[in-house]
């Protein structure tokens, strides 16, 4: 069941679209904000609420790389792998993070602390290489900076 809080938040978004389904991305994001990811159960509940079929909603959910249909860690690392960051050495930074956390891109650490996801250009190309954790941007990265940044997330 969607919680009251979730329903209120979703309803506020739905009013902004001519048809209910227009709000489905914001609805998915609202549920994800509360539950971390979109399970099959969450998807079915939400589809009911939006008067869409589950498959229809799933086809939208799976289109977007920032809607998670699998469980993720407490913190999401979006590592920019696009061109300006690549020129400035993002491959080494990514390898350093992989080694440090013991995971490959797309994986979650065993303690559930971090999920590491490669991402397209974060619009911080003048501070390449860059990454984003839980919506906060970090630029001009090197190994030492990575240590400092990751230490800030429990």
């Amino acid at each position, binding site marked *: 069941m969607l919680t009251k809080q979730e329903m209120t938040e979703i309803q506020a978004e739905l009013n902004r679209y*001519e*048809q209910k*389904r227009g709000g489905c991305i914001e609805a998915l994001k609202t549920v994800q904000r509360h539950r971390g990811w979109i399970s099959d159960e969450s998807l079915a509940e939400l589809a009911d609420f939006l008067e869409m079929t589950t498959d229809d909603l799933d086809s939208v959910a799976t289109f977007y790389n920032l809607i998670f249909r699998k469980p993720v860690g407490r913190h999401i690392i979006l590592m920019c792998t696009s061109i300006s960051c*690549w020129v400035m050495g993002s491959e080494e930074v990514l390898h350093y993070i992989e080694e440090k956390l013991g995971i490959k891109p797309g994986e979650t650490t065993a303690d559930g602390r971090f999920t590491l996801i490669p991402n397209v250009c974060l619009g911080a190309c003048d501070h390449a290489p860059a990454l984003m954790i839980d919506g*906060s941007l970090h630029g001009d990265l090197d190994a030492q900076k990575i240590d400092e940044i990751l230490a800030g997330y429990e």
Partner: protein
Amino acid sequence: MDRPLTENIRPGAPPDIDAYERAGGYRALRKVLKDADPKGLIQTVIDSHLRGRGGAGFPTGRKWSFVPGGEKAAHPVYLIINGDEMEPGTFKDRLLLEGNPHQLIEGIILGGYAIQADIAYIFLRQEYTVAERCCSRAIAEAYDRGYLGRNILGSGFSLELYLHTSAGRYICGEETALLNALEGRRAIPRAKPPFPPVVGLWGKPTIVDNVETICNVPHIAEHGADWFRALSRCGDGGTKIYGASGRVKKPGLWELPMGVTIREILEEHAGGMRDGFQLRGIIPGGASTEFLSADQLDVKMDFDSVQAAGSRLGTGTMIILDDRTCPVGMVLNLMRFFARQSCGWCTPCREGLPWLARALEAIENGEGRLEDMEILRRHTGLLAPGHTFCALAPGAVEPLQSALTLFEDDFIRHIREKRCPWRK
């Protein structure tokens, strides 16, 4: 005032509505609403020679004029601001969104008035979290002051403005894919015609304008078309937010007259190359534009001049290739991006881009053959405009086809030496 767009920019701590008004903000809106001549505003924008800053450079006023008007016209009319900015190497709209959201909102209300829109959306990529906060606050302030909502400043004109945050996928920035995204469908481009100004969101007339484009509108409305054209050094009106990233001394963004040369941007503003690095190539306007060579520094950065030089102005944010970076690796990185971001709707793009990425990967890893050069060349032609449903695939092959000519020797060295000469 020769830098209208960035004069009052305060990234991360943008002017609130009082500060914006003190600096002359919402004056243009008051004037336009008093004149009560939406068609006149469209004409002013046509006369200003403002061209779209989202990449394609379509004249903004002309696009607006395609919205059917008059008594019998379909409503609601929609105005959508494209803030999806995911083109690799592009970071200019973020500055405007985070640095002065009221400038954008005033532009939206003016643009909305010109096309007699009822509802406007700002379509923002999810990762722009600071921009989301800045815009939300500014929208609330504008509603409070009566600049948005019903009967704006007693003019009889009403406009609702909503912020939509997306959930990833580069293709959402393509304007018809964006319409599907806003309707809560998979963000796959639509067939054109019909074009969005006639049949757009939910089948209603819809204009999609880039963030930077619309930020120019308050200044045009306030100071006029002649003033705007005079800001530029070429036939297109206004200033442009240019950028540079890569191994230059001072990567960044600068608002400059439209039509300054690459040399001026790179040498005067970006400080030249970092010590120990030499310039080898320039991608002038985001990932989907062709490389220019290091001896094309005198090309002017306006739509027509860059086109004449064999590339496109695109977003005007340059990506610099230096001599210590492998051009094959660079093109491979770009191709992997496009292959991954293909929406999968049409076969040449869905199948062709991953295939190109694999071929480039083989060359980069020293497993290429000389015949591959010809195959790659031929394949770029197969993905030319008109062969695919949208412009993603043609854009994807632009850097490749130019690199095959400009850096042919480097490709051949990879093949002959069976390794990447830039890797130890």
